């Protein structure tokens, strides 16, 4: 009897331990990938009003974010949204002790549609934002366009964007042929991509 109880006890304990094998569960989890993409503008102007266009293959940018995080396009992309945007000057070359005001617009070139304002900038001191990342005032129309582009990417499109700097004024003195304005600057887009992923064999034993 004593031996039998002892054997039963051992078997029970081992069964509990071995039974834990059935506690491996597949879990579905939404992963948030946060990354940024940017566009660089090179400016050389002899007047206060200028337009600088720059094309960004948004599809390639998102693919790069996925690749950096070892995520394939076959994984379940749930959504992608713009979180914030920043800007700052990278290099001050000539006549840059000035402030500029204007806006940046964005337009899809892979499909038809109007340009939408996305970033407004007002009285930005060029030396004051050198090597800085200044949080941009975003415009809802432009953000909606970017978010739609991200949604289209998830649906298989390859969005191409054209950003246009549309400068309105330069103070205290506008640039001239004799006193041109030359600098480079960058706009960053902070993006989040949500992936739905299944993780196999997570131990959730009890």
């Amino acid at each position, binding site marked *: 009897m*004593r*031996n039998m*109880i*002892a*054997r039963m*006890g*051992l*078997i*029970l*304990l*081992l*069964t*509990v*331990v*071995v039974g*834990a*094998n059935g*506690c*491996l569960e597949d*879990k*579905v*989890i*939404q*992963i*948030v*990938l*946060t*990354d*940024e993409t940017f566009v660089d503008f090179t400016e050389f102007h002899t007047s206060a009003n200028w337009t600088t266009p720059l094309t960004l293959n948004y599809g390639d940018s998102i693919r790069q974010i996925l690749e950096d*995080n070892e995520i394939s396009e076959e994984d379940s992309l*749930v*959504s992608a*949204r*713009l*979180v*914030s*945007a*920043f800007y700052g000057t990278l290099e001050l070359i000539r006549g840059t002790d000035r402030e500029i005001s204007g806006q940046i617009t964005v337009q899809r070139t892979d499909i038809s549609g109007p340009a939408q304002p996305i970033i407004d900038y007002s009285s930005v001191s060029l030396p004051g934002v050198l090597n800085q*990342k200044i*949080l941009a005032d*975003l*415009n*809802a129309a*432009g*953000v*909606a366009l970017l*978010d739609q582009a991200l949604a289209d990417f998830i649906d298989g499109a390859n969005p191409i964007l054209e950003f246009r700097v549309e400068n309105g004024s330069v103070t205290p003195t506008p640039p001239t042929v004799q006193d041109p304005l030359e600098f480079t600057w960058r706009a*960053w887009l*902070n993006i*989040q991509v*949500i992936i739905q*992923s299944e*993780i*196999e*064999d*997570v*131990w*959730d*034993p*009890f």
Partner: protein
Amino acid sequence: MHLRGHFLKALGLVLLISTLAAPASAQITDQLSAYTGVNAEGFLNPLAEAFGVNLNDAFYYSADIPRSGLKLSFEIVVMGFLFDDEDRTFQATTEGGFAPQQTVEAPTIVGSGEALTVNGNAMTSFAFPGGLGLNSFGLAAPQLRFGSIMGTEGLVRFFTMEAGDSEVGDLTLFGLGARHSISQYLPSPVSLSVGAMWQSFKVGDDFIDASAFTLGVQASKRFSLLEPFAGFSYDRFAMDVEFESKASGPTEKLAIEFDADNTARLTLGLALHFFIGHGYGSYSISGSNNFSFGVALGK
């Protein structure tokens, strides 16, 4: 032979369990990349607590330590921690220049797998990553108990493995403990002992670096095959985590230090002695509640 087969299967399971940290850990590093320090700490906190409570468990199942004689047993112990509802969310704050800044109840690492999204100015949005949706957290470990010299026994807890994922790295658990019989000096109706154990748990070079320490007294009384036991201990646990964050744009390496957590623990359990070893189960009451069970083969 039949029992030996079960034992080998159980041992195989312990090794399997230790490999399971790899896929989950890889996801943890992904999820952490969306956060910087404060959010990352809140996100991981329930797991840190479970680690600490579990590591400091399964140290003993009896206070009866012979004054001398050979004592050697190979043990497999399983420590379990059940998460409460309050472990599933934490106060998280938006990051990455998102405006306006908002603080919401977001999933922790053990919370819902669904990401939580909040809306901001100009149709922007910010998403907090989902958790692993865990109900419990378990640790299994092999350990070797040996003695007795002057009523003292030692314990070594150890396993190491290569996770097979360069993002996570190797896992190593190493612990040393010792207990000393008090009842050999005192006339007592029950066996009494004191003991301490230190452990180190590392994942990767720097991903997780945790240490645990427990110091306590134990009492037990044997009735034939059964031996109820109890213990009271002072536990300490600290954990450092290093991870890569992209929350602020470019990748940056961040470190979180979970401050050393000191807790008192009361443990109640029952051991069963059989012809080739011992089995036991226990329940502990501290800041959180957890349990453990195990089997020891040997004297």
